[in-house]
């Protein structure tokens, strides 16, 4: 099979047609000057190059083919959003039978949930949040297991049969000078645990809080 695939692009003289195409803008080399197969191929490919160049120039100046600026603007917005969304994390604990996760959540969505939980604590401003998947899980460190609220909807069999994935969260925060750091740290941990469980449905094994700054109220 590999031979037949190769032979489709190789001329009778043994030279690959891709090689001829790559040199089409340059003068023929010594082999091409003397080889009828290459001369014929260069002639055909030269016509093709001229036609495609002409077509490209026509399309470049055709207002009908100008993309709508609104579409381009929206595409750029989406491109920027995709960069911000970061990696996709599995929602279920990875399974040896199915190593590629079908159900995922963006790193940014998990991070935003944890960030909201931290910002909700009086005297705390979250400056940065990093979420890292824990390979092999490890379960929730919440004392009560932090079962997520399910809103009374029916739980699918696949949901009950699988385990949620687990992440570690690091929050870099600024804390008000008027609050006790140990107290707000406890509250932030509790909030993050509950909120990530309720909004994302995955487990949080560990929450590191890095107090980077202090601010006045």
């Amino acid at each position, binding site marked *: 099979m590999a031979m037949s695939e190769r032979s489709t692009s190789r001329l009778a003289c043994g030279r690959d047609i891709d090689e001829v195409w790559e040199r089409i803008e340059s003068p023929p080399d010594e082999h091409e000057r003397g080889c009828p197969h290459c001369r014929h191929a260069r002639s055909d490919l030269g016509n093709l190059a001229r036609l495609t160049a002409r077509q490209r120039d026509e399309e470049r100046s055709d207002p009908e083919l100008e993309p*709508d600026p*609104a*579409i381009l*603007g*929206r*595409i750029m917005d*989406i*491109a920027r959003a*995709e960069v911000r*969304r970061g990696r*996709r994390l599995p*929602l*279920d604990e990875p399974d040896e039978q199915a190593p590629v996760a*079908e*159900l*995922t*959540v*963006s790193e*940014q*969505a*998990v991070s*935003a*949930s944890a960030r*909201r939980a931290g910002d909700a604590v009086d005297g705390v401003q979250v400056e940065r949040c990093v979420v890292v998947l824990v390979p092999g899980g490890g379960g929730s460190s919440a004392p009560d297991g932090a079962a*997520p*609220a*399910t*809103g009374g*909807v*029916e*739980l*699918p069999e*696949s*949901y009950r049969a*699988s385990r*949620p994935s687990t992440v570690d969260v690091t929050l870099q925060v600024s804390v008000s000078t008027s609050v006790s750091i140990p107290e707000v740290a406890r509250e932030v941990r509790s909030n993050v645990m509950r909120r990530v*469980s*309720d*909004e*994302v*449905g*995955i487990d949080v094994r560990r929450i590191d809080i890095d107090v980077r700054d202090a601010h006045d109220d």
Partner: protein
Amino acid sequence: MTEARTTTGADTTSPEGVDLDVVRVELASALLAEPGVLRVEATLAGMVRAWSADPAPKDLIRISVQDGTADVALHLAVQGLPARLVAHRVRDLVRRVLREHRLDPGSVELSVLTIEAAPPVLETAG
């Protein structure tokens, strides 16, 4: 082996004769009615395929059919229920809709790109 076909836009008929545009419309409608689903999110690839500044939800659902098996890919924004629970329910829903259209469900790649904060609960007076 029959021809593989991927649709998100004008090309709508699978090799088995199933109108995939109809499937996508039904799928979009059903999943937007699903508790916790806020919207179908656009991705770069989805925007380029739909080539519209404001694509309809159905245009952001990708269905590929090969040998009667349909693979689906979609991206969601959710609110009010855990993303993991919504994802499992939506996967079941997608498989159900595919079966109703005589397609065998293959992979359902579903990614929750956005989780909106739950709306504040308004306290009633009195």
